[in-house]
C-alpha cells in the first residue's frame, strides 16, 4: 500500500531503496570499490559486476551512467560524464579551470604526485566547478574527482569550492556539490585542514542568504569533506551504497580492533541513522534535483 503510493507518477520516485530493498542493501558486505571503472573497460567488452557478479557489457554500463543494468550497482563515474548527464546541453560554464596546486609546505614528493594525478585524470585538480542548468533551472555545481589524488581536499579544492559558493551568493543561485573524497590532502598539512573552515564559512553565508545547498554523497565521501560541506546540506542526497564516514573503515578497525558490521558507513546506513535525506539512483538524479529546485524556486509564494 505504502509502496504503491510512492510509485504514483506524481511523486518524485526517489524511494527505490525503501523497505525490503534497504534492508537487503544494508546487509551487504563492505566491498572494495572499483577504483576506476573506465580503465578496466578498455581491456575487453565485458566486466564482472561487483554487485551481482554477473558478466555485463561495458557498453551497457556506460549507457547506464556507469551503473549495472542488472542490479543497479553504482560504479565511479568521471566528473565530466556526470556533468554531461546532469546539465542541459551546452549550459555548463566552468569556473577557475586553470587553477592548479602549488606546494605550500614544500612537501617531499608532492609535486611529483600532483603531476601524475594530472596525467592520470586529465584534470588540473580534484574538483570541477561552474554553473549550468537542470531543465532550465540555473545552479552552481561542484563535482569532486576521486580520480585526482582520491579527491583529497587541498588548498585549490577548498578555494575553488569557496569561490563557487561565493559566486552563487552573488548570483543568488542554489549550490550542488557532488562529494567524493578520501579526506584532507596531507601534503598540504594544516592548510588543508583549514579548507574545512573556509568552505563551511562560505556555506554559512549562503544559508544566511536563504539559498539552497544540496550535497550529493558519492563513493567515497570521508574525512575532512564529511566533517565539513558534505554534512551541511539543506537536503542531503546520496548514491546507493556509497561509503560515507568521518573516519575511514580501516582506521576504525585499527582503533577498535574488531571488524565492522556489514553495511556500516554505507548510504543506506546513514539514511537509517538520520544523516541522509534520500538515496537516489544515478539515473533518477536529474529528475529528483529538478523537482527539488522547482520547489525551491519560489519561497512561500505561488509559482504561477
Amino acid at each position, binding site marked *: 500500500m505504502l509502496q504503491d503510493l510512492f510509485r504514483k507518477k506524481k511523486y518524485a520516485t526517489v524511494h527505490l531503496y525503501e523497505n525490503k530493498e534497504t534492508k537487503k542493501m544494508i546487509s551487504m558486505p563492505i566491498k572494495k570499490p572499483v577504483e576506476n571503472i573506465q580503465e578496466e573497460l578498455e581491456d575487453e567488452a565485458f566486466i564482472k559486476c561487483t554487485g551481482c557478479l554477473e558478466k555485463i557489457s561495458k557498453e551497457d554500463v556506460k549507457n547506464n551512467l556507469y551503473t549495472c543494468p542488472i542490479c543497479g550497482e553504482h560504479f565511479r563515474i568521471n566528473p565530466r560524464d556526470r556533468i554531461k548527464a546532469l546539465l542541459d546541453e551546452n549550459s555548463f560554464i566552468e569556473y577557475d579551470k586553470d587553477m592548479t596546486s602549488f606546494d605550500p609546505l614544500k612537501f617531499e614528493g608532492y609535486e611529483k604526485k600532483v603531476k601524475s594525478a594530472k596525467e592520470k585524470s586529465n584534470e588540473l585538480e580534484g574538483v570541477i566547478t561552474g554553473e549550468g542548468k537542470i531543465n532550465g533551472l540555473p545552479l552552481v555545481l561542484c563535482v569532486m574527482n576521486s580520480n585526482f589524488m582520491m579527491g583529497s581536499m587541498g588548498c585549490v579544492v577548498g578555494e575553488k569550492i569557496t569561490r563557487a559558493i561565493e559566486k552563487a551568493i552573488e548570483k543568488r543561485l542554489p549550490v550542488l556539490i557532488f562529494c567524493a573524497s578520501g579526506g584532507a590532502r596531507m601534503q598540504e598539512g594544516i592548510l588543508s585542514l583549514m579548507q574545512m573552515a573556509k568552505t563551511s564559512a562560505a556555506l554559512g553565508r549562503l544559508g544566511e542568504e536563504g539559498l539552497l545547498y544540496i550535497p550529493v554523497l558519492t563513493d567515497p565521501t570521508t574525512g575532512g569533506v564529511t566533517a565539513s560541506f558534505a554534512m551541511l546540506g539543506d537536503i542531503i542526497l546520496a548514491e546507493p551504497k556509497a561509503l560515507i564516514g568521518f573516519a575511514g573503515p580501516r582506521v576504525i578497525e585499527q582503533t577498535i580492533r574488531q571488524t565492522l558490521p556489514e553495511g556500516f558507513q554505507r548510504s543506506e546506513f546513514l539514511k537509517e541513522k538520520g544523516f541522509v535525506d534520500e538515496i537516489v539512483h544515478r539515473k533518477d538524479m536529474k529528475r529528483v534535483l529538478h523537482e527539488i529546485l522547482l520547489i525551491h524556486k519560489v519561497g512561500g*509564494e505561488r509559482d504561477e
Partner: protein
Amino acid sequence: MNSILDFEKPILELEAKIVDLENFSKENEINLSNEIDILKNKLIQMKKDAYSNLKPWQRVKIARMPKRPTTLDYIQKITSSFMELHGDRLYKDDSAIIGGIGMIDHIPVTIIGHQKGKDTNENIQRNFGMAHPEGYRKALRLMKQAEKFKRPIITLIDTPGAYCGIEAEERGQGEAIATNILKMSQLKTPIICIVIGEGGSGGALALGVGDRVCMLENSIYSVISPEGLSSILWKDSSLAQKAADMMKLTAKDLLDLKVIDHVIEEPLGGAHKDVEFVGKKIKDYIVDELNGLMKLDHEVLLNQRYDKFRKIGNE
C-alpha cells in the same frame, strides 16, 4: 482491531437485506420496488441518526480505525508533487513521523505528520505512530528548513501519544517535545495544524502549535487517552467509554472550548468512506487559510499565534 464498529451493525444488516431483496426481485421477476424504496429511505434515516449523533466513544473508535486514512494518504490527495525527507541529523530516522516538501495548488509547502501503519507489520515499523525523540527532532529540522525557505508548514496529527519507553526517556522525550512546542511558537512562517485521527497529548502538541489548528469531524484530541483517564480515576481502564464522555475530546467540544478554529467535515461513517472528499476539504481549507496567512507580516503572524494560545484557559 475490527474495522466495523458495533453501532454500525444494524446499518450493515439493513444494507445486506436490501441487496438480498433486490437480487430476489431480479431473479424471480417480482416487483418489490415499493418495499425496497421504503427500506432504502429507512437506511438513509438510520445512517443519519447513527452518524450525525455519534457519541464521543464512537468517535474515538472511528478516529482509531485501521482503515482511517493516514498522513501519507492525505499527502497524496492534496499535493501535486511531494518528496519525503529523512532523518534528524542527530541519531536516527524515525518512521513514526514523516515529513517532506511538496506543492499544494502551486504553493511550496513542508508537510509533517505522524504516520500510522495500515497493517500490523507496517504498524510495528512505524511504532503505531508513536514517535521517539528523534521523530520530533526530524520534524523540527524540517520546520526550520521550511522557515529558511519561507515555506508554510502543514502538520497532520495522528498519534496515540509520544512513545513511553526506556530509550525514549534516555534520549529526552520531554526535551524534544518541549523544544518543538517552543520553536513552533517562534517560526517565521505560517503553520496550519490538522488533527486527522488521534491527537494524543504531548506527542500531538509537539506538532500542534500553529496559526490555525483544526480537526477532522471524527478525530479526537485530548490530554490523556480515555483508557488512561479511567484507569487513573477508577483504577479500571475498561471504563474508557465513560471517561471519553467526560473528557471533551471531540472536534465539536474543542471548537466550543475555542481550542481549535475549525472542524473539517467528513462523509457519513467517517473519512475512510471517501478519502477523495476529505482530501479535497483539507486542501481547500489549507489553500484558503494560507492565502490569508501568507499576506501577514511575520510580526503580526507571530503575535496572533502567541495570542491564540495565550488566551486558552484564561477564563
